[in-house]
């Protein structure tokens, strides 16, 4: 099914109702995840740089920028992302390299971690970290060359895995308290320990700037895809109302958690399980059913074609 995304597959599998359900589920999931993540990041910014500012105001500024970016069009978001992604990738590598002289490789021991059950069974749920794969379900209509989809998918999964590994490795080998306690600002902590000689001591400000761009880019992409999905499903021509509504909804979601314990619960429990259910169960099932339906359809067509050819041959011989 060249050029088709998960919404098209849903329509193929369960007609319009399933497409609407998929669109709503995806939209709600993305709104929830982006709302919680932007809240967490804004809290971090407030804690570090704007102690007197209200968190909703910081969130609002982020959302305004993302909404304006969406008003300027998807192509502009893609172009700006091309720059931002490169900077982000370089940043993660820099954090990893800069912390190399401070790491203690013995921190990978005990090799079985918290035990076989914790590592291999409970730990398997951490596959939710690959939640970004959701965009692979949606990206296909945006590709210029449809045949490159497989390549794009494999490269993005490998890149995600490598960068996840780099981040986790640098954190795990750098700090003992990550294994003995809870550390919410661990990446920020690691950037605070980085020194490039005596001249560049406070690199954390630079990383915060990069993360601000990252979040702007992330929010822009999220709003853009939610808008695209809903335009497609409900046949809306003008995208502006959807952009505003999505922006407002993300803002409202970010206002729901009252304290840090609720943010942690939303991140560690709701986000984790919703990502697993929506991305790795629901979407996968739709694709699987779509695949079997398509295979069955093709098989039926082949049988029909054969019967037709046999009939034609019989008629000719008669």
């Amino acid at each position, binding site marked *: 099914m060249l050029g088709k995304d998960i919404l098209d597959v849903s329509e193929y599998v369960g007609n319009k109702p399933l497409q609407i359900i998929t669109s709503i589920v995806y939209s709600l999931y993305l709104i929830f995840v982006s709302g919680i993540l932007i809240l967490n990041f804004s809290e971090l910014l407030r804690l570090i740089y704007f102690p007197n500012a209200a968190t909703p105001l910081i969130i609002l500024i982020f959302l*305004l920028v993302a909404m304006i970016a969406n008003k300027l069009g998807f192509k502009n978001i893609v172009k700006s992302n091309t720059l931002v992604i490169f900077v982000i990738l370089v940043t993660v590598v820099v954090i990893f390299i800069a912390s190399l002289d401070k790491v203690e490789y013995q921190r990978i021991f*005990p*090799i*079985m971690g918290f035990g076989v059950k914790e590592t291999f069974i409970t730990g398997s749920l951490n596959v939710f970290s690959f939640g970004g794969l959701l965009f692979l379900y949606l990206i296909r209509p945006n590709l210029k060359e449809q045949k490159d989809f497989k390549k794009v998918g494999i490269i993005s999964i490998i890149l995600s895995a490598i960068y996840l590994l780099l981040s986790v490795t640098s954190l795990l080998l750098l700090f003992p*308290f990550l294994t*003995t306690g809870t550390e919410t600002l661990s990446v920020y902590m690691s950037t*605070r320990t980085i020194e490039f000689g005596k001249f560049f*001591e406070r690199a954390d400000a630079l990383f915060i700037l990069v993360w601000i761009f990252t979040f702007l880019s992330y929010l822009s992409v999220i709003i853009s895809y939610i808008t695209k999905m809903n335009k497609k499903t409900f046949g809306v021509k003008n995208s*502006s109302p959807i952009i505003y509504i999505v922006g407002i909804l993300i803002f409202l979601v970010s206002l729901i958690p009252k304290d840090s314990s609720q943010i942690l619960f939303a991140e560690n429990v709701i986000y984790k399980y919703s990502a697993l259910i929506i991305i790795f169960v629901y979407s996968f099932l739709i694709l699987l059913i779509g695949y079997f339906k398509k295979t069955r359809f093709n098989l039926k067509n082949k049988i029909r074609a054969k019967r037709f050819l046999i009939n034609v041959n019989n008629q000719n011989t008669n």
Partner: protein
Amino acid sequence: MKARKFLILLLGILIILFSFSNSSSINSIDELAYVVAIGFDVGQNNDLTISFQINSPYSSGSEESSEGSSSGSSSTINTVECNNLDIGISLLNSYLSKKVNMTHCKYLIFSEELAGQGIGEYIYSFKNNIEIRPTCNILISKCSAKYFLENSKPVIDEVSVKYFGLETSSKKNTSYTEPITLKDFFCDLSDTFGSPYAILGSISGLESNNVGDNSMTLNDNEYTAKESDDNSQKNIENLGLAVFKSDKLVGEISGLETICHLILSNNFDNATVDIPSPFDDSNYISLYIYKANSKNTVELVNDNPYIKCDVNLKMRLLTSSEHSNYMTDENKALIEDYVNSYFLAHINDYLYKTSKEFNSDICKFGKYAVSKFLTWNEWKNYDWLNKYQNAFFSANVNSHLSSSYLLTETKS
């Protein structure tokens, strides 16, 4: 187009609002009082006496002192009595015309008395304080922290923050101490591989009632912070390390023991040491050790740690005397033997002192033992930090005198 104009207008209004509305609360150098060091002592009425050394960029250089504060050429010391740091900052803010800012704080100084009671809660508070950098040094003062700050006047540098920054670089030149930062101390405090330690500091030329007996005759390297005999002027003297068990101070190690510690923990840069001359009992020869490392292994024998340290030293000879000739193979071998014996004795002393006397694994031998365990629970149940007391050691020193050439060769 209409929407775009509206957005541009909205953006313009927002920029103007943010540019002008909050200007009264913008923090500039005129509104901030920069703290360069904070001292903690046991308080008389409350739990704590906190002394803040605040840099005065516009100081005229005159010396003044008043109740609760004293000022030197470039800094002022303000003292408050309170229950914790945050209250102390609030109290200080209440009678300072400027807002206290700790982003340039270089030293956190705890008096020996307070460190003996435990400093964990302060370290955790600092860790959560965004203004204090993780690179801020932790120092345990032999005298009161206030006295330390009052007498820590820069000798060469004019700006005290720069002076504090340079002070810890002495490790690179002498190896008599190790710069321990807030991040290091916090990591060690929460670590299962080893125990925390901090810089041991004092003020040279202390009055006899501020420190213990200063009359002992010691080898140069065996000094600890209080024992230096330079009484000519009062300035910071960081020598040795303060050893902690969990968050409580349990002892101290001298300059030479610190060299042993740095060698065993593979953090050694370079050092100059005196050893008894193998050629003349009444003399010493000076050696410049420019490379040292230790291959450490841990085995568990009868559930107790058996720690093996294989130390390699590379050194050059600095001393020459009238009747010595260090060029011959025999003399070179003799010096190496002496160095091996000398360091073996001190390393063994250091190891058994940290194990039996302090029960504090400041070398982090735990990281060599952790690979013997399969799961985190097994490692935690073993309780390395307390098992270290039962450890027994086997050290071996191999020294290599890389060149015995001196600029002026002597002949026997």
